[in-house]
């Protein structure tokens, strides 16, 4: 498919579904001859869980890295919380990033720090004059929320894969971000743990009214968490709809995700 399946998404959605927190128009990104993102248009509304599907290597991780400015765009417009990303520099960018949580595909835990220090790190940087008692209680609460209470003083290297994912999640959630970006939150986990993570994502959405972009290959996770799904193919948004819409799609290519 070479044309974009959701033209003019911005205008159409603005009024009907409430506040737009992330808006992308004609996003393009290439690495040399590798044209990863060719024309991406999408919006995320306040309080919405948007699931992004796509084969490995289609540029899903690149897409959300653009949102936090880890990767610079080649072309296109990216507006986040009503701020134009391309115009943001220095402290403004840092301020915006504080409102965005990013769960890395690899976890990206600070492996020279203990579990506790991993969680304290973002807190200390952003709320510099936090009293020790408050800090401790925030850390304990965050760990409790992801079910890691007992592991507070060990090193990340000693955690299992699922525990690392949950720690990464706790570290991102501890600052109560307005926008959450999950890069494959359930990959490599057993079905039960994935289910727990999916519920956690839903809980976060409910409690903090967070808007999220969830990248996943796990259809069960997509079914549980998605308000809306976008499928990326060949660098464009090839299909969009609710889980049921896509599950009943006639397109064999879309069907292949659901098998």
């Amino acid at each position: 498919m070479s044309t974009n399946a959701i033209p003019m998404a911005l205008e159409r959605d603005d009024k009907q579904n409430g506040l737009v927190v992330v808006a992308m128009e004609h996003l393009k990104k290439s690495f040399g001859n590798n044209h990863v993102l060719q024309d991406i248009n999408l919006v995320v509304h306040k309080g919405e869980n948007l699931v992004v599907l796509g084969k490995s290597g289609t540029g899903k991780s690149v897409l959300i890295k653009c949102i936090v400015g880890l990767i610079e765009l080649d072309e296109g417009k990216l507006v986040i919380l009503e701020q134009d990303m391309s115009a943001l520099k220095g402290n403004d960018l840092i301020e915006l990033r504080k409102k965005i949580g990013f769960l890395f595909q690899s976890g990206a835990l600070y492996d020279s720090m203990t579990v506790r220090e991993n969680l304290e790190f973002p807190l200390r940087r952003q709320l510099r004059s936090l009293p020790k008692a408050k800090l401790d209680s925030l850390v304990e609460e965050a760990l409790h929320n992801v079910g890691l209470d007992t592991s507070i003083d060990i090193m990340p290297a000693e955690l299992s894969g699922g525990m690392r994912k949950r720690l990464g999640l706790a570290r991102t959630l501890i600052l109560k971000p307005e926008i959450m970006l999950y890069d494959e939150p359930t990959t490599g986990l057993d079905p039960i743990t994935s289910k727990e993570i999916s519920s956690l994502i839903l809980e976060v959405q409910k409690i903090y009214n967070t808007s999220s972009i969830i990248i996943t290959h796990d259809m069960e996770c997509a079914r549980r968490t998605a308000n809306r799904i976008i499928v990326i193919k060949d660098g464009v948004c090839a299909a969009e709809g609710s889980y049921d819409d896509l599950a009943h799609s006639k397109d064999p290519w879309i069907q292949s995700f659901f098998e």
Partner: protein
Amino acid sequence: MEEPILNQSQAERHDAKIISEVVSETISTSVIDKFFLEVASFSIFTLRFFKDVFRPPYELNELAKQAFLIGYKSLPLVGITGFIIGLVLTIQSRPTLANFGAESWLPAMVAVSIIREIGPVITALIFAGKVGSGIGAELASMNVTEQIDAMQVSGTNPFNYLVVTRVLSTTLMLPLLVVYADVIGLFGSFVGVNLSGDVTVYLFFSQIFQSLEFQDVFPAIIKTFFFGFAVGLVGCYQGYNSNKGTEGVGKAANSAVVFASLMVFIIDVIAVQITNLLQN
């Protein structure tokens, strides 16, 4: 592509082969290009350090921690090296001086060589090997595992937190380590003198202090700040800009040592020239 069944890793290898062919054809220009690109990006990195070092937030906790790790943890290695250098230098120099009937000059000669040249340079090289490679490997592995990216998205300036603190620590700690190595080296020399003679501590050190001049000590200490700065900066540069992948970590550690050692010698040559100019 002619072969559609090529999977991705095969395709990458195919590409890599084409690239290496192209590179070997144009090797002469590309090596020069690469050299200048590297110099340019290192210069930008250095400028960024000077821009960020004065800009808040000041990461004082991390600075203290790094200074401790970099300075304190190097004490045993630097101490042992210093002692051995002092000892060996003394033992080796004795016969030559004895030939000229100048054996009584032994403490003074060894002290001047240790303090002016051998202490600073050897300590800096050891420091490059231990600390420079450590910084290179640590930052590179943080880069590979996206920890630097994670810091960035959590609203921290990773350059300030990781690079500035480490470069300041090496700049401040190496001079202290050199002084420490000098002192232990002189003690080693004292032991060496006493292996085949009998000199009191008082006599030994009063001889040294009589022969030492301000021009011996001061420039030697000043240049160690530059050595420390170079080791820290090169280590951070190699780590921070490493390639993604495990092999990037090893390469970063390796180049950190190689280039930091090279920088130490270059700075040393420049420092000697400047000292000579100023003294004439």
